[in-house]
């Protein structure tokens, strides 16, 4: 199972590297949204709750782009049949797609988060960096699992571009709550880490539930 997952992941990363269709779009989108928030909120710098909120809401909206494009190669080039004809476990497909999304999100954050710090974050990131990494990692995992599931659910429907955001964003609300609440103290002038344990636990619970659930139901998708 692992080897097929790896083969599929490798293929997806290779295609993304060649076409550069998802990650640059997500980065550009994120930075644009930061600029929008600057004008919309009429603020030069944010801290605490506002900073945390802007960072995470932008992340989720950018994720929508990644999720919508997750099965694009398969859809446009008849690749789904290729996968269905091979002795490939649906679970490997799920793992591969979720891993791809996870890696894309990480790549986006490598650029978007420092840009956010530069453009909008008053206190700066130095305060509690390792904690931020933990939140980002767990957050990405949840988005990846739910995103892969939503991508598969919407893969064959006609109104895919509408359904993905409408389906993905409500499902991500608990994750948003946990991530935003956990990040908020890190972005205050006097960075602290209150309640971090509690929110990380909620995030972990969310991740576990959705990873298990997605793996369980994925078998029933993408087959006829």
């Amino acid at each position, binding site marked *: 199972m692992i*080897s*097929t997952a790896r*083969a*599929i992941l*490798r*293929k997806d990363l*290779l*295609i993304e590297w*060649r*076409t550069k269709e998802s990650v640059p779009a997500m980065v550009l989108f994120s930075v644009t949204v930061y600029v929008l928030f600057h004008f919309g909120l009429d603020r030069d710098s944010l801290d605490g709750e506002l900073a945390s909120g802007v960072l995470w809401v932008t992340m989720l909206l950018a994720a929508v782009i990644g999720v919508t494009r997750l099965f694009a*190669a398969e859809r446009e*080039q*008849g*690749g789904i*049949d*290729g*996968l*269905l*004809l*091979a*002795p*490939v476990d649906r679970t490997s497909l799920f793992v591969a797609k979720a891993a791809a999304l996870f890696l894309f999100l990480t790549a986006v954050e490598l650029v978007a988060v420092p840009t956010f710090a530069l453009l909008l974050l008053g206190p700066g990131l130095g305060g509690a960096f390792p904690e931020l990494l933990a939140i980002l990692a767990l957050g990405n995992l949840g988005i990846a699992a739910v995103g892969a599931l939503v991508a598969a659910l919407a893969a064959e429907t006609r109104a895919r571009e509408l359904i993905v955001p409408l389906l993905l964003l409500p499902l991500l609300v608990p994750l948003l709550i946990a991530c935003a609440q956990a990040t908020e103290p890190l972005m205050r002038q006097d960075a602290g880490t209150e309640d971090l344990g509690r929110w990380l636990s909620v995030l972990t619970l969310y991740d576990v539930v959705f990873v298990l659930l997605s793996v369980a139901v994925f078998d029933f998708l993408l087959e*006829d």
Partner: protein
Amino acid sequence: MAAIELERLERRYGERVALAGVSVRVEEGRTLAVLGGNGAGKTTLLRVLAGLLRPHGGSASVLGADLPGERWKLASQVGYLGHEPLLYRELSGRENLRYHARLHGATPGRVEELLAAVGMEARADDPVRDLSKGLVQRLAAARAVLHEPALLLLDEPRANLDPAAVELLEPLIGRASGRTRVLVSHDVEGALAESDLSLGLRDGRPAPVGAELYR
């Protein structure tokens, strides 16, 4: 045990009947020609045989696997050459074949062997989107036989191929390959010449092979 045994196979698409009452028996190593006009259900039949679509009625047994329950058994035994080449356009021929090899557990050596067999060594590293339809079809054929399948499902396999290519592909997908084959083609005479039995379809139902079929 026949390679393919269909008994009153049925497949619907919503309310519309795509296939109904299709019965046929194909022994190992034989070729079945499936003929009919556009929309007759030929491609649907191939997809059911490939395990891509599940039958809605009747019974179907392909290579010893009962459909739909045992579809998973078919996974590595069927080679499908359909209208879509099933190749990623941004990747090269070699990369595509290597990817399929990994999925099926075939070796890189086999990939090189096939690239040579279909005359694609020179352009194996060009992205598929830069290749002409004929070259893409060669690669698609290579992909279809990469894992040495017992059953070949061929939907207009010689479309876009020049005579040289047709000859190259003959030992892979032709009668000479020795595999059980189901062949869909609009070239009625050619198809009948290289098959052992034939099935005509009209509106999803079996019909005698003749001029009537295309009315």
